[in-house]
């Protein structure tokens, strides 16, 4: 394996080094080193930065900022992120969670990237050194991203964040699919706003916009969510892999979305 690792103390210097051909940013290694071990020769040089801000979690006034190098394990055990813990624990086994980072998860292709599904439902922003992007904009063109992700930020909903991962092996298995939702309900119980994100239903996490629209003004009952479930598969193009076929994923999506909404 002809790889060279370059370590920089600042993101700025690492970004400059990342402009060279054949370079890739190294986070926890669960994607990039895996690719190298598998024989991916497109990468000859790995770049990383040890800037402390990349490993920091700050929570203040409902605003959350998670540095890109923060691991899934660090999120899962953070006292202020308890309602996100099950989404972080959905990733890998214990060793993977000690390594896999938030920044890396943003790039994980289906069937991986469960935590990014949660971030998409939370309407997160993706921060780079000199600005930030809405997560949907970032995901749409993530292959062409050449700037180091420094953090993700979002406003924590008071409640109403739901997450579900379906896998065939318990407790740890690769996703058949994952669903995250952030719902707000009016005092009469009807849904006043909904963001629903799906994992494994395309090559990257996607919004279920038709299902979201169908949920507005409805109550979270079997009858109330029926139109939402009927619209759940609109716009999906699931992956077919050894875990499940695209057909199967489309068939079971409404079942699991129903469980998430009624649960």
């Amino acid at each position: 394996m002809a790889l060279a690792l370059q370590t920089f103390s600042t993101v700025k210097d690492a970004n400059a080094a990342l402009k060279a051909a054949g370079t890739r940013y190294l986070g926890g290694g669960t994607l990039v080193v895996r690719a190298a071990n598998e024989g991916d020769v497109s990468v000859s040089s790995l770049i990383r930065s040890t800037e402390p801000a990349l490993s920091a979690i700050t929570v203040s006034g409902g605003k959350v900022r998670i540095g890109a190098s923060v691991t899934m394990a660090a999120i899962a055990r953070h006292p202020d992120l308890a309602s996100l813990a099950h989404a972080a624990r959905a990733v890998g086994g214990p060793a993977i969670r000690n390594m896999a980072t938030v920044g890396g998860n943003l790039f994980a292709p289906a069937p991986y990237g469960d935590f990014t599904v949660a971030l998409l439902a939370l309407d997160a922003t993706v921060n780079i050194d000199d600005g930030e992007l809405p997560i949907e904009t970032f995901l749409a063109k993530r292959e062409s991203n050449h700037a180091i992700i420094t953090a993700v930020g979002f406003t924590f909903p008071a409640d109403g964040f739901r997450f579900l991962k379906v896998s065939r092996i318990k407790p740890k298995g690769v996703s058949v699919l994952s669903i995250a939702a952030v719902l707000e309900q009016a005092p009469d119980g009807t849904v006043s706003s909904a963001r629903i994100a799906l994992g494994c239903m395309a090559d990257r996490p996607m919004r279920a916009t038709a299902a979201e629209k169908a949920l507005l003004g409805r109550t979270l009952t079997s009858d109330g969510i029926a139109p939402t479930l009927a619209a759940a598969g609109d716009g999906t193009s699931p992956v077919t892999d050894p875990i499940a076929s695209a057909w199967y994923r489309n068939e079971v999506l409404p079942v699991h979305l129903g469980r998430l909404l009624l649960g």
Partner: protein
Amino acid sequence: MAKVPVQFTLNGAEKAEFIDSGTTLLNALRDKIGDTSPKGGCHQGTCGACSVIIDGELRLSCLTLAETCNGAAITTTSGLSEGGVLHPLQRAFLDAFATQCGFCTSGMIMAAKVLLDHTPNPSRDEVVEALSGNICRCTGYEPIIQAVLTAARSNSQNAA
């Protein structure tokens, strides 16, 4: 390619080596330092056979670059026995027939050790969760789970 220096503590002993940049910790341990207790299974982060403990956390040595471990304290299964006396986990694995072909055993023991270090009296579910990143194709897992529970009991008896 120029060699780079790495220096870390392995099972309590200082180690320093010159390695090729980009070498995984698994390859550095096995091929340069001679500790073959971490096994190279899938090299994809899926099987857990290469699990080691780095600064108290379970990690996969096949996906960790050795250079990122400078200054770290690394524990592998080969460092568990003391003076020829097996660690309670190793003893329990032998007694419970929790090892058949043995390829996953070292990684399983590392995952179990991290669990028992933090949770001395784990429930069965906690053991299953702790071992969930480690694959065994021989035992069906039940003897392994029982071995970890037995080791936990013998630890707590020794402590009492």
